[in-house]
């Protein structure tokens, strides 16, 4: 009996694009979609909700508390709750992950707006900005670095959390883990881990790049 190698390249070659739903490339694509949709939805919801929390202070405490409780729930629990509603579909993974993203992004939006220095806000008022324009042209742009920092955390954790969906067959690259464990066959596991890490590094890198392009004025960049 020959020793099983850690990685069998021929397996990768055969399974990269075999046309079926279990092809590595198909899983990768699935993973990307399932990881990014929650972040996107999260951002779309977190912006108005974060603004509302800044506008009506009393809203923030309960919202933050709710989000933290959600965050502390094991993702599996959340998946099983939605399983009964949305079945074995992508939504069962995407919806809970959206809540996780919100738990990071709402505070990021609130903290971002709080990071706008008081003199900046006051001089905007003093120069005659009306509230909506002040928000769009001054406060939100100045909040961008803090919001982007939250977005990086949300994105990377979303990419890693998608794998848990493998338990209901919707885990993107996470499906490779189950496949590997069931067969005591390491190659898919290694491929899954490597691709997920690469994906996370790539996404984070893109966000850092976006930050540099969007906020050339940020002092933090110089020291980073």
């Amino acid at each position, binding site marked *: 009996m020959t020793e099983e190698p850690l990685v069998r390249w021929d397996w990768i070659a055969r399974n990269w694009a075999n046309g079926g739903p279990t092809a590595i490339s198909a899983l990768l694509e699935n993973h990307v979609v399932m990881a990014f949709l929650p972040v996107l939805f999260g951002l779309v919801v977190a912006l108005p909700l974060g603004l509302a929390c800044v506008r009506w202070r009393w809203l923030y405490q309960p919202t933050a508390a709710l989000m933290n409780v959600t965050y502390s729930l094991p993702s599996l629990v959340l998946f099983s709750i939605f399983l009964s509603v949305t079945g074995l579909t992508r939504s069962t993974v995407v919806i809970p992950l959206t809540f996780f993203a919100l738990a990071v992004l709402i505070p990021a939006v609130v903290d971002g707006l709080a990071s706008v220095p008081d003199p*900046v806000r*006051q001089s905007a008022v*003093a*120069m*005659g900005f009306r509230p909506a324009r002040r928000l769009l042209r001054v406060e939100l742009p100045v909040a961008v670095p803090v919001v982007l920092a939250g977005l990086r955390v949300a994105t990377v954790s979303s990419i890693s959390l998608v794998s848990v969906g493998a338990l209901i067959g919707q885990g993107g690259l996470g499906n490779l883990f189950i496949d590997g464990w069931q067969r005591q066959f390491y190659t898919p596991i290694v491929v899954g881990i490597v691709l997920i890490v690469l994906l996370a590094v790539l996404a984070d890198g893109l966000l850092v790049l976006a930050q540099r392009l969007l906020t050339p004025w940020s*002092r933090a960049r110089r020291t980073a």
Partner: protein
Amino acid sequence: MITFEDVTKRYRDGTVAVDDLSLEVPTGAITVFVGPSGCGKTTSLRMINRMIDATSGRITLDGQDVREIDPPTLRRGIGYVIQQAGLFPHRKIVDNVATVPYLLGWSKKKARTRAMELLELVGLDPGLAGRYPFQLSGGQQQRVGVARALAADPPVLLMDEPFSAVDPIVRASLQDELLRLQSELRKTIVFVTHDIDEAVKLGDTVAVMRVGGRLAQMAGPATLLTEPADDFVREFLGRDRGIRRLSFISAKEVRLSPSPSDLVTDEDGRALGWRTADGLAAHGTFNPETDSLRVALDAALLSPNGTAVAVDEEGRVRGVAGRDAIDELLAEYAPPAAGRAPGGSSGGSSSGAGDSEGAPA
């Protein structure tokens, strides 16, 4: 002209920041609000552009009650400068300066052209236009703040401790710059500070406020130094009032004598020093056209023989003034003694050795 008529501001927590304030801010001059921390200076200032609304009383701008004007519209016509500059960190310097023109709907090109003019006006290198605020020093940021406030050429300028966060040397140059600008622009400026020296230097009129937002005295700086209304004002003005007051008397009237033979000059007529047995001794100079009596007295004190050298712009000697000549003028400008005896004597005791205005007569 800006008028405060019985203006009171009571905050929600019950703090009375400004109490029944009535005063007039004349057009085209610098009016300084000065007083200890928490006396209501910022509150008073912000009621003018309605960042804060008065609880009672009214404030008018050229006769119109500010409460009848939509706040953003009102504010676009009033320049505002604050201590921390408050520049927009995400906008380049040129766009920071062009903020109000943009708000007023000017074209980008016109607004930027105007911004470049202003950078020059406040003495900034146009090369800084493309930088972001974090790439500027505190003093430069403050100049940008002034340029931004002036961008749409508002007739009124409100300045809240604009120079307090920079070091003394930069502060002095910013103050000189403001005076130079004002001699050209003739804006109606309300300037808030807690620094009495700054108030006396910049103000055409100085309003001294006491805690609780009450007006203690409003007067020109020279009058303030000579005739403080009460002990609070006297104490706030601090020591050396007698000497500091000389800054407001021109040295023009100092009687000059011909230059004596022991004053050594070069071939252009510039003074080199006093001839003494041990060689040349130091001399002090003043320009009667531009300097104050304080400078003349200082020049006299710097010379071993107590004689100040009067020079013209090029530094050429025009004559000399001995202490007797300076004394004559001092006597002429002695503060009024009659009828102010009680104030004068208590002033002598409370403000110490520097205060000698009661003595000569």
